[in-house]
């Protein structure tokens, strides 16, 4: 039995350290991983727990991220708790197996420390990798700071392993901005954390020899569609379980999580929709603008998948203009979050103007001033009853102003 660790009521942890502590407390059976910046410390910290007898499980250091996810799938099918971590290129290398994991309905947790995707090579945080996972069939939950990274990693096991879900879960945090920034984190004690996560319940496991199981069968046009439809429904249905797990977590810690986090939206006239560590920047900017008399608010999808279509619509039903921020190169299209938020708002009777801002690529700093500019532009749209800027703009990039499309509602 692994040795317990006494934690302080408040610890000073960065996002990586917070995740590794959550992984330790969840008493994982198999961690199979391959290190990559900026998520490397998660694997290193876990390695130190292994070396010092703080975990009982197996630690398999494989030769690539593709192998890491493959070993995780094999381990999960063998009926135990499984987790790994990655970023960026490692995530891209895993992608084939991400689809295979969700298609086989094996629960496992992948902590993704978001980082830009090459080329050019870049180790800093943006959401290129997170977006590349959006059709992979995983639950994707986004943490905006170290505390949330810790909390949501514990929640992730409980969500994915629930018999009504049985799907793999990603917990995202921003590279360096969250992963390497030390903050105050209030952890649970080991026993409390494990009790919350609960024992793993094996299901259709390869190590129960009373019943043969076949994982990873082939289906063609006769059955593939039905399998994918069921998987899609299971992902949408996981929303209910996510809500339940968040409610249970609140009972335990007082910390409340929602699939869509709304901030100062009760009377908001303009709003920003954002993901990741920028949410905190934008909230601060909105507070400041309220002092200037602009009724600004912030909506942040905590849950990127399943996409909270109704909750986004509800959160933004009464605003006049909304800016959707995408921290990923959209490459010949509107930003992905913009597209999804716009589609959720389309059936509103009085739908707001929706604009798209591409920002922070490759870890480019995103300032409070920029967030305020974006909100002020929304205010201008609201006042003019028209979109006064390009629909899509790049903010914080060098060179002449870069924007696309001027289609107006009229």
């Amino acid at each position, binding site marked *: 039995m692994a040795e317990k660790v006494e934690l302080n009521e408040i610890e000073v942890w960065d996002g990586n350290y917070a995740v590794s502590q959550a992984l330790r407390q969840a008493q994982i*059976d198999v961690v199979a991983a391959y290190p990559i910046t900026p998520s490397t410390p998660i694997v290193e910290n876990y390695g130190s727990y292994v070396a010092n007898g703080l975990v009982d499980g197996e630690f398999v250091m494989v030769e690539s991220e593709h192998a890491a996810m493959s070993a995780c799938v*094999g*381990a999960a099918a063998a009926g135990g708790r499984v987790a790994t971590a990655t970023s960026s290129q490692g995530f891209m290398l895993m992608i084939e197996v991400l689809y295979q994991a969700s298609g086989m309905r094996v629960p496992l947790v992948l902590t993704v420390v978001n980082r830009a995707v090459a080329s050019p090579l870049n180790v800093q945080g943006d959401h290129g990798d997170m977006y590349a996972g959006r059709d992979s069939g995983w639950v994707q939950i986004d943490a905006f700071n170290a505390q949330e990274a810790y909390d949501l990693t514990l929640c992730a096991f409980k969500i994915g392993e629930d018999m009504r879900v049985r799907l793999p879960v990603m917990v995202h945090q921003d590279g360096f901005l969250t992963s390497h920034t030390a903050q105050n984190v209030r952890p649970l004690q080991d026993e409390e954390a494990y009790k919350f996560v609960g024992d793993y319940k094996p299901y259709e496991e390869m190590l129960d020899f009373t019943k043969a199981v076949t994982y990873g069968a082939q289906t063609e046009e006769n059955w593939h569609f039905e399998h994918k439809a069921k998987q899609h429904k299971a992902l949408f249905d996981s929303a209910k379980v996510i809500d339940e797990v968040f409610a249970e977590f609140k009972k335990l810690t007082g910390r409340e999580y929602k699939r869509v986090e709304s901030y100062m939206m009760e009377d908001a006239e303009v709003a920003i929709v954002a993901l990741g560590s920028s949410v905190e920047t934008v909230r601060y900017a909105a507070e400041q603008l309220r002092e200037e008399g602009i009724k600004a608010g912030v909506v942040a999808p905590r849950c990127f998948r399943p996409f909270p279509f109704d909750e986004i619509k509800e959160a933004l039903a009464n605003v006049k203009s909304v800016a959707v921020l995408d921290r990923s190169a959209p490459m010949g299209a509107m930003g992905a979050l913009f597209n999804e938020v716009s589609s959720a708002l389309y059936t509103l009777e009085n739908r707001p103007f929706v604009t798209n801002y591409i920002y922070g690529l490759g870890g480019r700093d995103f300032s409070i001033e920029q967030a305020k500019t974006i909100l002020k532009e929304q205010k201008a749209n609201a006042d003019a009853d028209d979109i006064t800027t390009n629909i899509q703009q790049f903010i914080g990039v060098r060179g002449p102003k870069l924007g696309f499309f001027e289609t107006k509602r009229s």
Partner: protein
Amino acid sequence: MAITSIKNLKEFSTVNERFEGAHLLCPGCAHSMIVRELMNATDDNLVIATNTGCLEVSTAVYPYTSWDTSWIHIGFENAASAISGAEAMYKARKRKGTLKDPDAPVKFVAFGGDGSTYDIGFQWLSGAIERGHDFTYICLDNENYANTGGQRSSSTPIGAHTSTAQAGRVSYGKKQKKKDMIAIMAAHGAPYVAQLAPNKWKIMAKGFQKALETEGPCFINTVSACTTEWKFNPKDTIHLTDLATDTLMFPVYEIINGTELNILYRPKNVLPVEEYLAAQGRYKHLFKPENKHVIEKIQKEIDAKWEYLQRREEARV
């Protein structure tokens, strides 16, 4: 592990019915013979991972499965990683006491064709062998990408015609030599590495048992004659494999701990390689006068390899 009878082939072939006869492999395909033999070689429970390939697509087409055992397929290249994960999970759960039956004996096995073993899954296999998981990897070597219609692999021998290394007016087929996976796996320090053939079924059964009993990662390359792509009559699979082992195109041998080499089958009459080549459509073009030099080259390399194996066996290195 209870050793099952290996004296009588008929009896042996039905000891453990864990691989269902109803599957979609071609008539005459040696894959199913090899798989059945592996599964009959042990009474232990099996956890099997299989790479994408002929074996996989022919045995697990929903809603059917040919596998009356624990079986997983993830992708083309990663059965070695999948079995690594399953084996690690077994160790973890055994230690923690969460296995349903902790005393149930179990063996971990991975199957791959030469496409997934020699080429696309090479790194995954190398990593799993290096990490020392307790499993046996069996390559069903039919020397081409048969599942996708017969393209070259790095296991395809020189001179063979494949759809991506064709014989034509200015080409005699594949120009490169077959990769020596046995040497590569032995160089990893794997405790047991062997090349076996289903026509020598007793030797094969013993080799499988040895691998399954050996703690640590074992690698076995098996000759799997491919009636469809090698182009011979499906009824002749074993005859063709006899020619493969008797011409020494496929020498049958083992290497223990990377150093101790033992030849497991010594043909009484070594046949000229022409007899093996002539029995298959994929080598038909080599019998044109302008390609005679290729046959000579193949024979020379077979002779040199055989001499090398014998020297190593004698020197115990």
